[in-house]
């Protein structure tokens, strides 16, 4: 009888691009998960040495504290314009923006629509938690109907405040968008599927001209007045009912030989 010696195999570790420091995010916040997915992909795709991130205004402005790549901070909503300048001036760079829903779907609507219309070769990571978290939980354009926030204290009333904006669906209409998808961080299965979407969006930028975007439905337990686990369940139940998950468009025809990257 022989004894097999099982060599230890690392199956989970901190990605090298993820800095070793505690985040400032609240318990149950989704930003830490999305940061990790980005860090894993930058590692796995070998992009760290040519990545430039664009941080936007909101809780996630501090993404540059947790992702060890070059970063430029953008004014509120302007990240797609800033990323346009970065990528046009540095065509060899891998450029992504990290934007919240107040940033992308309200104040920055013009910038994201026109970056998409021009087909800027950037990737947009759009984290949608349906609320302005950093400023204290006010209503966002993505806030669900009936949802109570500090600026819609009796619940979002469409007669007063209109309807949630499905901006990723709107962007998917534009031929300059190579890939648009919506995932969530509601449970480990969804996190895995969201990572696959982010990988496809990153590959899209590497392989073909055009803008790729992944909307990630995320949480704001403090802003929503929920516990962390309630917030996760809320994403899986209520939020996906307004914002269905899935790939909205995929115009990335894999080029033969995958000329660039990976």
């Amino acid at each position, binding site marked *: 009888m022989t004894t097999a010696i099982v060599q230890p195999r690392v199956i989970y570790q901190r990605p090298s691009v993820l800095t070793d420091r505690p985040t400032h995010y609240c318990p149950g916040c989704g930003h830490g998960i999305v940061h990790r997915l980005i860090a894993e992909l930058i590692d796995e795709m070998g992009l*760290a040495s040519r990545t430039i991130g664009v941080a936007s205004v909101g809780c996630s402005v501090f993404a540059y504290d947790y992702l*060890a*790549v070059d970063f*430029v901070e953008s004014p509120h909503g302007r990240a797609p*314009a*800033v*990323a346009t300048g970065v990528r*046009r001036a540095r065509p060899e760079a891998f450029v992504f923006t990290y934007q919240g829903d107040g940033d992308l779907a309200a104040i920055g609507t013009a910038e994201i629509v026109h970056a998409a219309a021009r087909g800027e070769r950037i990737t947009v990571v759009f984290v949608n938690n349906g609320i302005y978290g950093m400023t204290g939980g006010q209503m966002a354009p993505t806030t669900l109907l009936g949802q109570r926030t500090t600026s819609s204290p009796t619940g979002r009333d469409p007669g007063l405040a209109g309807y949630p904006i499905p901006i990723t669906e709107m962007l998917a209409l534009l031929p300059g968008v190579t890939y648009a998808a919506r995932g969530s961080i509601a449970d480990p299965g969804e996190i895995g599927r969201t990572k696959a979407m982010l990988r496809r969006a990153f590959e899209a930028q590497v392989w073909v001209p055009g803008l790729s975007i992944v909307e990630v439905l995320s949480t704001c337990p403090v802003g929503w007045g929920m516990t962390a686990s309630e917030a996760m369940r809320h994403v899986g139940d209520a939020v996906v009912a307004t914002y269905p998950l899935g790939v909205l468009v995929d115009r990335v025809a894999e080029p033969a030989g995958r000329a660039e990257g990976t």
Partner: protein
Amino acid sequence: MTQSASATALAMPAGAEHRREVRPVLMKGNEAMAEAAIQAGCDAYFGYPITPQAELLEHMARRMPELGRVFVQAESELGAINMGLGAAATGAKVLVSSSSPGISLMAEAMSYLAGSELPLVLINVMRGGPGLGSIGPSQSDYFQATRGHGHGDYRVPVLAPASIAEAVELVADAFELAARYRTPVMLLADGIQGQAMEPVVPVYRLPSWDAAAWELGGANGRAPRVVRSLHLSPEDLEAHNRHLQAKFADIAAREVRWAEEELEDAEVAIVAYGTAARVARTAVARGRARGLRLGLLRPTTLWPFPAEPVRRLAERVRAIVVVELSAGQMIDDVRLAADRTPVFFHGRMGGMVPTPGAILDCARTAWALTEARR
């Protein structure tokens, strides 16, 4: 006679000695400034159409792609200046241009550029305001330009040409100042300067530019860099502001520029910049032909303002006349410097331009009312 308090005065244009051999060409101001930026090595231009600077955008649309450089017509002035911010963060030599209403939209990013210490050259071809105003020439953005446009404690060097030929030289200077101090720099022209055609000697110089200290390009072989203006801790933000203020003090000490014309024996001095200075020059000549000893002090940097030259001037003239294409904005800086010397004002607004006769009338009034100060 051009004067400069600069301890590190900008070098004479390379090949300046050959200027006489190069034939001047007639160029429209907007096109001349655009071409000057190209010749200064501008890597990227971002703009949005607005009168009276549209030809600048159009010239760049034609020239930049053929040179393999970056040109983007943005969705708005907000888009344009923020594209400029992104490109500047990569170390690119960036030009953005607009006219008054568009510059107001760019105020946000100018504050971010100043806070993030990113160099960028912004040309404002001023038109009449407030609001949509008119498309005529104006100097009513002086406050906005010299007081920093956006929120926060910051200043931006502001260069003011009085001719298209001077504008061409100042474009190169603007890039050099931007890189030297890691700051946005504004070139303040007006609708006449944008639209008029004047002879320009097509000799250019390449400003020095070294972006190694700040450029982003991926953390390849070095620690990652962050270009930021956010400093949430009060201690950090105050320290950052102290650093910025020290830089602004350095600029104020080194980069004051102005020109003096006929001031040696002047009894009434006109202070004017840009197009107003051009008209004032004619008024000086007419006044002298009538026995009025007039002279002209022409700031070519509006910030830093030549306060000390104006103060010295105020000590030896009876009166100062400020001429502006506005209700009177630079006059505040002149009054601060002039102390107790009487300061008179002649201005036109809304696209109207002062006439030499009206300036001369104002100078005559100043002369008469200050008879006792002789």
